[in-house]
C-alpha cells in the first residue's frame, strides 16, 4: 500500500494488476450496445503525466512506468476488476496446500510470447531471481518467506531452491518457510510486477550465477521490451512525446480488436482533461470539480465507480503537545465533531462516500455490521470530552486535565484542494465542540517527513491507496511505529495485533477466515478511532462514446481491453 498523494486528478489509466469492489456506472451499462457486430481497427490514446522511468517491472516503482510494462508483461494471477478477488491470468489454477506451506500455480496451455518463444514457469522464476539480485527493486519483501530466497540474494546459491518448475514448465511449485496468507495474491501478481521473457533477457543478465555484483538493473532491454505476453507489443518510445504499441496477435485472451495503443505524455492533469475534451485522448479520469464541464461534452460518456483509496485525519496518540489524543473518548468526540457527509458533498461534489473503519467498501473483506456510523453531534462530542475530564474554559475552549487549553495543530499537503478544504471544515467544526485547531499547509514530502513516527505532530490529513489483497498489518500493528513505518498514530491494541496476524499467518488462509479477522480489526478501529475516517472517493472516468465494451472498475480499467472496439 502506499501513502496517497492524490493531486486529486488523473490517477486514471493505471492498469493496476491488482484490484476489488462493486462498481456502479453512471448512465447505461457499458454492455448495452454489445448486440452489434464489433469492428476491428482504430487507435486508443491514453494520457500520462510523465515519461516512463523504465519499461521493466523489477525496478519499477511509479505509475508512469507501470502504465507501460503492464501492457506487455502480465502476471500469473490478477485481481478481479470489480471484486478484487484473486483470479487466474497466465495461471489457470493456483492452490495453497492445507498446511499453507506449498503454493502451486498451473499455467494455461499453449502460452506463447509475441516473438514465438513458449511461456513457461522459467520466465516467472527468472523474474523472481532478477528481483533477488536487483539493487533498485522494491519487491524483495514479496519473496522473503520462500525457501532458499536469502541464500540466492546473498549469492550463496545460484538458484532459489524453494521454487521448482515441473511438467515441462507448466507447473510452478513454491515452498515457504512459514505460512503467509497474502502470499497467494502477492506471488501471483509478482509483488505487483509483471513477468519478463527470460530467453532474451538472459542474454543481458543470466540468473544462474552466484555473482551478486551483476544484476538486471541497467540492461538495455529495460527501455526496449523484447517480447510481449500482454495485449500490446512495444513499438517505439519518443521521450516527452509518447510510447507506441501495436496489437499482439498472439495474446492469450485473443488479439485486440483495436490496432494501436498510444500512451501520450501531457504536462499535467489539466492538459489531459483538455485532450479528453478535444477527443485526442480516448479515456481519462477527471476531478469532481471538472465534472460539470466535462459532462457537457456530448462525445464523452461517464463511467463512475468506487476506488480503494480513503482520506482520514490521523491523531497522534503520543503527541507531546496534545496529550488528550491518547484518550479514546476524546478521539470519539473528534469523530462526532466533524460532518463527513457534508465534506463529501462540498469537496467531492457528492462523488464519494463516508467510511467508518479501515477496510474500504469495495473490498471483499468489507463488512460494516456492528460499526458505529459517527454522525455529527456537537452535544455528544462535548459530553464525551467532559467524561474524559476536560473542563470548559471561559473562552469557549476546553481545558485538559492538566489545565492546558485544548489547542492543537492539523497539517496537510498544500496544493491538494480537497484536503485543504477538509482542514478548513475541521477548524470550524472543532471550534463548535470547544477544540481549537491551528492549520498548517506544507508540501507532500514535508508532510511525510513530519509524520515519521514521533511526538512532534498532532493531527494530519492524508490518505491510503490500498491494494486488492487486504493486509493492514503495516498500518495498525503495534510493532510498526519505528522510523519509516506506517503506524504513525501509535495505535496499540492486543486484540487488533492478534487479528492482524491471523489475517497474515493463518492458520486459516481462506477468504472467510481472513474476512473474520479483518472485521475484528475494523470493529476495534471503529471504536478506538485512532483516525477520524472520512471518505473514499469515486472515480469519474470519461471515455469516447464510440468506444464499446469499455468497462472500467475499481481494480482495473483495461482488464478486457482485447474486446474494446470503436463504433463507426
Amino acid at each position, binding site marked *: 500500500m502506499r501513502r496517497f498523494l492524490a493531486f486529486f486528478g488523473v490517477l486514471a489509466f493505471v492498469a493496476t494488476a491488482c484490484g476489488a469492489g462493486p462498481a456502479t456506472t453512471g448512465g447505461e451499462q457499458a454492455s448495452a450496445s454489445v448486440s452489434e457486430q464489433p469492428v476491428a481497427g482504430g*487507435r486508443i490514446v491514453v494520457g500520462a503525466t510523465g515519461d516512463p522511468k523504465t519499461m521493466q517491472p523489477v525496478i519499477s516503482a511509479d505509475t508512469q512506468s507501470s502504465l507501460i510494462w503492464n501492457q506487455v508483461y502480465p502476471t500469473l494471477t490478477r485481481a478481479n476488476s470489480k471484486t478484487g478477488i484473486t483470479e487466474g491470468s497466465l495461471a489457470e489454477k493456483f492452490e495453497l496446500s492445507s498446511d499453507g506451506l506449498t503454493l502451486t500455480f498451473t499455467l494455461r496451455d499453449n502460452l506463447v510470447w509475441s516473438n514465438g518463444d513458449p511461456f513457461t514457469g522459467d520466465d516467472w522464476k527468472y523474474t523472481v531471481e532478477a528481483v533477488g539480485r536487483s*539493487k533498485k527493486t*522494491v519487491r524483495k*519483501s514479496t519473496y522473503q518467506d520462500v525457501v532458499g530466497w536469502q541464500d540466492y540474494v546473498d549469492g550463496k546459491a545460484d538458484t532459489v531452491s524453494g521454487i521448482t518448475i515441473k511438467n515441462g514448465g507448466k507447473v510452478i511449485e513454491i515452498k515457504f518457510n512459514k505460512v503467509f496468507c497474502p502470499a497467494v495474491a502477492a506471488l501471483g501478481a509478482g509483488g505487483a510486477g509483471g513477468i519478463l521473457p527470460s530467453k532474451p533477457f538472459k542474454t543481458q543478465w543470466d540468473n544462474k550465477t552466484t555473482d551478486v555484483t551483476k544484476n538486471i538493473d541497467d540492461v538495455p532491454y529495460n527501455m526496449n521490451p523484447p517480447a510481449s505476453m500482454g495485449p500490446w507489443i512495444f513499438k517505439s518510445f519518443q521521450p516527452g512525446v509518447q510510447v507506441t504499441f501495436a496489437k499482439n496477435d498472439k495474446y492469450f485472451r485473443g488479439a485486440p480488436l483495436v490496432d494501436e495503443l498510444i500512451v501520450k505524455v501531457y504536462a499535467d492533469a489539466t492538459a489531459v482533461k483538455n485532450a479528453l475534451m478535444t477527443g485526442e485522448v480516448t479515456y481519462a479520469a477527471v476531478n469532481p470539480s471538472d465534472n460539470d464541464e466535462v459532462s457537457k461534452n456530448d462525445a464523452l460518456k461517464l463511467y463512475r465507480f468506487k476506488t480503494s483509496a480513503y482520506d482520514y485525519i490521523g491523531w497522534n496518540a503520543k503527541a507531546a503537545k496534545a496529550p488528550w489524543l491518547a484518550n479514546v473518548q476524546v478521539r470519539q468526540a473528534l469523530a462526532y465533531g466533524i460532518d463527513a457527509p457534508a465534506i463529501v458533498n462540498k469537496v467531492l461534489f457528492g462523488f464519494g462516500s463516508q467510511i467508518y473503519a479501515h477496510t474500504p467498501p469495495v473490498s471483499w473483506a468489507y463488512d460494516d455490521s456492528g460499526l458505529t456510523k459517527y454522525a455529527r453531534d456537537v452535544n455528544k462530542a462535548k459530553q464525551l470530552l467532559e467524561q474524559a475530564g476536560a473542563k470548559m474554559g471561559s473562552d469557549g475552549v476546553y481545558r485538559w486535565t492538566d489545565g492546558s487549553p485544548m489547542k492543537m495543530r492539523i497539517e496537510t499537503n498544500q496544493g491538494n484542494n480537497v484536503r485543504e478544504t477538509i482542514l478548513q471544515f475541521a477548524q470550524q467544526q472543532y471550534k463548535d465542540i470547544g477544540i481549537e485547531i491551528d492549520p498548517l499547509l506544507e508540501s507532500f514530502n514535508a508532510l*511525510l517527513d513530519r509524520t515519521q513516527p514521533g511526538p512532534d505532530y498532532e493531527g494530519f490529513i492524508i490518505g491510503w491507496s490500498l491494494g486488492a489483497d487486504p493486509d493492514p498489518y503495516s498500518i495498525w500493528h503495534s510493532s510498526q511505529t519505528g522510523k519509516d513505518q506506517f503506524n504513525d498514530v501509535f495505535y496499540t491494541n492486543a486484540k487488533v495485533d492478534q487479528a492482524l496476524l491471523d489475517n497474515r499467518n493463518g492458520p486459516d488462509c481462506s477468504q472467510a477466515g481472513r474476512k473474520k479477522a479483518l472485521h475484528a480489526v475494523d470493529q476495534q478501529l471503529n471504536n478506538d478511532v485512532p483516525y477520524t475516517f472520512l471518505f473514499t472517493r469515486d472515480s469519474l472516468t470519461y471515455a469516447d462514446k464510440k468506444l464499446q465494451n469499455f468497462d472500467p472498475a475499481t481494480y482495473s480499467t483495461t482488464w478486457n481491453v482485447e474486446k474494446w472496439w470503436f463504433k463507426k
Partner: protein
Amino acid sequence: MLGGQYDITPEDRIALRESLGLNDPLPVQFAKWVWNVAHLDFGNSFYYQRPVMSLILERVPNSLQISLAALIVTIAVGIPLGILAALRRGTLADHGIRVFSVGGHAIPQFWLGLMFVLTFGVQARWFPIGSMNAVGIDCGLCWDRLWHLMGPVAVISIAGIANLPRLLRTEVLEVISQDYVRTARSKGLKEQAIIAGHVLRNALIPVVTSFGTILLVFFSGSLIIERVFNWPGLGRLTFEAAVNKDYPLVQAGVVISSVLLIVSYILRDVAYAWVDPRIKVR
C-alpha cells in the same frame, strides 16, 4: 527519487548512498562532479536512470525549433514595426504600436499561453492544444508541425515584438536627424536606401545589445511555454526535473543555460562588429 516508495531496507539505503557517492566529503563530491562535467558527463538522471547528456541531446532539437522560429518572427515583425513607429510618429499606427508594446510587456507569457490553449485549442478547435504533432503523425518538416508551432511561437514572439519597436523607435528618431542622413538625402538617395543603409544600421546597436541575452531568454521563456503547450523540449525537461528533485538533470540545465548566456554574449559582440565596423578589435 524513490517514487514515494518507502519499502526500502536500511541495507538498501546504505548501498544507495554508496552508489550515489554520498559518503565522500562535499569538496570531493564537487571536484568529481566538475571533472565529469568537463568531460560532458553530467551523470545519470535519478528519475530516468539514464545519462543526463543523452536526455538533453534528445530534447535540444525540439527546443531549437521553437526558439529559432520565435527569433525569426520577432525580428521579422518587430524591426519593421519599430521603423514604422518612428517614421509615422504621432499617427494612429505609432499609437497602436505603443499600446501593443505596453500590453505585450505587461501580460505574462504563461497567461497568454493558457488563454491561447483554452480559446483557440479547447473551445474553438482552430489550433491543437499542444504537442509537436497530432497523434499518429510523426514528421519534422510538414504542415502538421507548422500548425503545432504556431501557438507557442506566437506567444513567445509577442513579448519580443513588444520590446523591439520601443527601442528602435527612439533610436531611429535620433539617427534620422543626424547630419549624415541629411547629406544622404541631399545627394538624392532614395528614402528606402537611406533607411536601410544609413539609419537602420546605426539604429541597430542598442537592439543588438538587447539581443545579448536573447538565447537565454528564449531558453527560459520556453520553460513555461513548453509546459503550457506540452512541447517536449529542454525547458519542460528541466522544469519536470526540478519538480522530481532530479538534481543531476537540474544541474545540467543550469550549466547549459549559463553556457548559452556566455555564447549569446559572444554572438552579440560579433554582431556589434557587423553592424558597426568601428567596434572591431584591432
